[in-house]
């Protein structure tokens, strides 16, 4: 008998062939979730500047106002919004609510995510720009 290693088998979660909304929603959920974990650590690392006094913090804030950083903020908001909104979808499905409409719920999540991200990005650049 031939057996792919457990890691290789488990790695199939990124394979989108033949998948539809539900599979895509899960893939994005996991990717944004992992992204959020990484972001959390970067965030904590940056916060340590607070302990080093006002100069260090102000220098960081000056850099954080660069267009590149603001664009990254937009990416972060995109990820958070998708994760949170799809989190609501997954929670509802887990309670047996809306299961036959899961695909439509996914597109609703996508639409809301993009709309709210657009508003947020506009606000960020309008305020700091």
């Amino acid at each position, binding site marked *: *008998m*031939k*057996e*792919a290693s*457990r890691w290789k*088998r*488990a790695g*199939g*979660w990124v*394979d989108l*062939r*033949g*998948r*539809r*909304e*539900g*599979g895509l*929603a*899960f893939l994005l959920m996991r990717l944004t979730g992992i992204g959020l974990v990484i972001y959390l650590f970067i965030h904590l690392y940056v916060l340590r500047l607070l302990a080093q006094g006002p100069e260090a913090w102000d220098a960081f804030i000056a850099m954080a106002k660069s267009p590149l950083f603001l664009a990254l903020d937009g990416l972060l908001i995109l990820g958070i919004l998708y994760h949170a909104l799809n989190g609501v979808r*997954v929670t509802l*499905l*887990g*309670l*047996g609510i809306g*299961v*036959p409409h*899961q695909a439509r719920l996914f597109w609703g999540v996508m639409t809301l995510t993009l709309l709210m991200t657009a508003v947020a990005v506009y606000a960020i650049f309008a305020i700091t720009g």
Partner: protein
Amino acid sequence: MKVRLRIQRFNPEKDRKPWWGEYEVEAEPVDRVLDALHYVKWYIDGTLALRRSCAHGICGSDAMRINGRNRLACKVLVREAMGEGRGVITVQPLPGLPVIKDLVVDMEPFFANYRKVLPYLINNDPPPERERLQTPEERDRYDDTTKCILCAACTTSCPSFWANREYIGPAAIVQAHRFIFDSRDQGATERLRVLNEWFGVWRCRTIFNCVEACPRGIQITRAIEEVKLAILTGRLS
């Protein structure tokens, strides 16, 4: 029409690793992928190993991965598969289970999970004179999950199952659902206990791959959520 097939081959007595066999066969557009596989086995290479029995979508023995999707080879038209694969049909064994030879996988982990849910009627009352009666509404309650043919397309399409074969899997939950919600059955408590364990229903991540894969169109995730709710509320209504 000319059909090109890429079939994942593996002979445990000769090969160290699986390899791709490429075959060209003549087929009608409305032939099934199973017919093309038969052509390979009967006229090109008799050593090709695959399972099939009924050839009409009833027995569930020829589930395999066609163009990356778990399906019954006897239910996919060559025309359809050629379109998806841009002229080449890719055929692999079901993922997540050990390969015995070519397209034949070891179904034992799948059936071990199936047996865990006690997939038979449990009723300790003395048998009545004739059949145990049930209203049409009571029969309807679990109608969808009676359609399962145990092909394993769903369970082997599930990332949770790929990550850990201890996960009982959608097919076993479907089979449990079929008895849990049967008004004649008295084994619900025991089945719900099994499904509430670490590798029971809570491993479901609502990915819906099982629903996409099921050749019988069973609303599997709905059945899983109904079982989850029954565990949470302790009620079957």
